[in-house]
């Protein structure tokens, strides 16, 4: 049945390619009507062919991390090479880079809409829609979205960090369990949205039990946006990115989007140039704000694969 409808559709296209009404004679019009009715008839009888609203597909969001035009490559804390340079001309390397992505939505030009399922709970299996993207774990950089209604999509929106609503649910498992590697501050309880660690010869930091010599740690956290917290800094960002071209999502396709995060744009945004000789230990919401405000501009969609 499926193939018959497809065949009729194909015939429609072949025979009536010139859709221009001026070129159509009456016979053509009648034929179109005939074929349309026939098409409708067969479509109505079909049970196994997905109709709009019933087909679903997957979509992969692939996060590529860069420093300017260089791909990120993590090193160990004892490495003595410093492959990246900030706007101040200070060289540095990276031993850790990551961030939380959550509450992902896709939207299309014709009202298509998809929201990734969100749930929290103590059991890791209950935790859905929260992703800890880590440069050290290539699997974490590929977020597979599932059960997306078939259609055209040209925009992705996500939360960078873990927002108030989620923190206020209390203890949560999976990627939000601190014993499983979650980035949780205990003293100002909440999750670090975005973090880097590494070394720069410009950093005056001396070695101690938590830090290597010349260490640089920038942890951007802070989520408080609740009653009675007027002075709190909320660094959780909602980011919307347009695709360079729309992608079709349906069950027989596996499209993806390559998102780029350029760390230089986080460090050297419109409002600041990071200076590792003075800024090398960022561990509180207010100190992270200047970087958090650069985060939206640091992410872009490089390209999509249909």
């Amino acid at each position, binding site marked *: 049945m499926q193939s018959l409808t497809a065949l009729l559709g194909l015939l429609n296209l072949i025979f009536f390619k010139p859709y221009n009404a001026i070129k159509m004679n009456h016979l053509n019009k009648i034929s179109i009507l005939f074929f349309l009715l026939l098409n409708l008839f067969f479509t109505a009888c079909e049970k196994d062919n997905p109709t709009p609203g019933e087909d679903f597909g997957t979509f992969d969001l692939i996060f590529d991390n860069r420093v300017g035009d260089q791909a990120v490559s993590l090193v160990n804390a004892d490495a003595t090479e410093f492959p990246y340079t900030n706007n101040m001309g200070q060289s540095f390397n990276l031993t850790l880079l990551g961030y939380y992505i959550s509450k992902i939505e896709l939207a299309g030009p014709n009202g298509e809409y998809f929201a990734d399922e969100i749930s*929290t*709970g*103590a*059991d*890791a299996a209950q935790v859905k829609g929260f992703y800890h993207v880590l440069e050290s774990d290539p699997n974490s950089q590929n977020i597979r979205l599932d059960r997306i209604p078939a259609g055209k999509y040209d925009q992705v929106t996500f939360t960078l960090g873990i927002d108030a609503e989620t*923190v*206020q*649910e*209390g*203890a*949560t*498992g999976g990627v939000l*369990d*601190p*014993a*499983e590697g979650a980035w*949780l501050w*205990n*003293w*100002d*309880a*909440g999750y670090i949205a975005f973090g880097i660690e590494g070394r720069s010869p410009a950093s005056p930091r001396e070695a101690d039990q938590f830090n290597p010599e010349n260490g640089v740690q920038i942890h951007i956290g802070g989520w*408080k946006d*609740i009653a*009675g*917290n007027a*002075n*709190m*800094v909320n660094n959780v960002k909602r980011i919307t990115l347009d695709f360079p071209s729309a992608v079709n999502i349906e069950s027989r396709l596996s499209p993806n989007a390559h998102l780029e995060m350029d760390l230089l744009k986080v460090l050297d945004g419109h409002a600041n140039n990071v200076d590792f000789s003075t800024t090398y230990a960022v561990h*509180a*919401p*207010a*100190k992270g704000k200047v970087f958090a405000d650069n985060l939206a501009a640091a992410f872009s969609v490089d390209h999509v694969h249909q």
Partner: protein
Amino acid sequence: MHFSNLYSFSNSLFGIGLLALLLSSCTREKGIAPVAVAYEFAAPAEFPDPIYTFKNNPITKEGFLLGKRLFFDPILSADHTISCASCHIQSLAFADVPLHGVSVGVNGLSGTRNAPALANLAFKPEFFWDGGVTHLDFAPLNAIESEFEMGSCIEDVIEKLNAHPQYPSLFRQAFTTEKVTTPYLLYALAQFMNRMISDQSPYDQYLAGTAKLSEPEIRGMDLFQQHCASCHDGILFTDYSYRNNGLDSLAIDPGRARISAFAGDHGKFQVPSLRNVGVTAPYMHDARFRTLEAVLDHYSEGVVASPTLDMSLQRGDQLGIQLTDSEKAAIIAFLHTLTDRDFLNDPLFRRE
């Protein structure tokens, strides 16, 4: 709560309930009827609605008892020397002993702030003197990981609990989880703490019409309403705001500003509940006052000016709340009516 060793009434098999009844009948005190213990959370009628997320973590018998065991177990500390109960002692409304103005943790290290009393936590929006923690579940992590308290890292604690001969099966019974994980550890502790409701003080009985207060206590209550209740507000005796109560011209501890990084919050601390305040000496975030008399002397004569001093403690050039000795004594008499002996002695919270 008079016969709290009757765990089983509300939520276990009839046979066990019957056994508990039989056992308890031997220990019954004269004239007091046995009361079935409900593990479920029940907010006292006069209290506001609880804000804890019970939908995620309702109290069960198994979860409560597991939480209690963990509360008393030094396994949570790095060197197995410090438990929650080391610094939160039931007979002192779960505050620390007066000798420990700031508590002593692993390796003999002292903290910088006075350990708070624990009660009515399900109603509390923010925890610790600076309010950095906004959900009860996360509160124990601070103590577990602080180098001045338990000095652990949570990964090690979870590993130790999973390797323990009994804990994995206790967690399985409480939460049907195959593995001990952080959220279940925090759930169990929260169940134990959420059940700590203190609502049976003489003041509560006075409100309920089942007891009378003495004349000085009534006078103290009126003076309290007039001079203290703008901050120590309502049935829980706190509005949970952050205020500088004039201890220092320049506070050493930034207090709320540690969380907000806002200069206007320097030296502000969360207004504590005054329930059971008669047994939680010493007082203030840094434990500087040993008695309630010293506290009232401070408010009356000792308030010091600073840029963030609370407005309610300054009227023109006049700082503090001027009280006569007799007024102070009356207020202190009233504060002692907030001591809930049932809560301090409730066997439900005792180590098994």
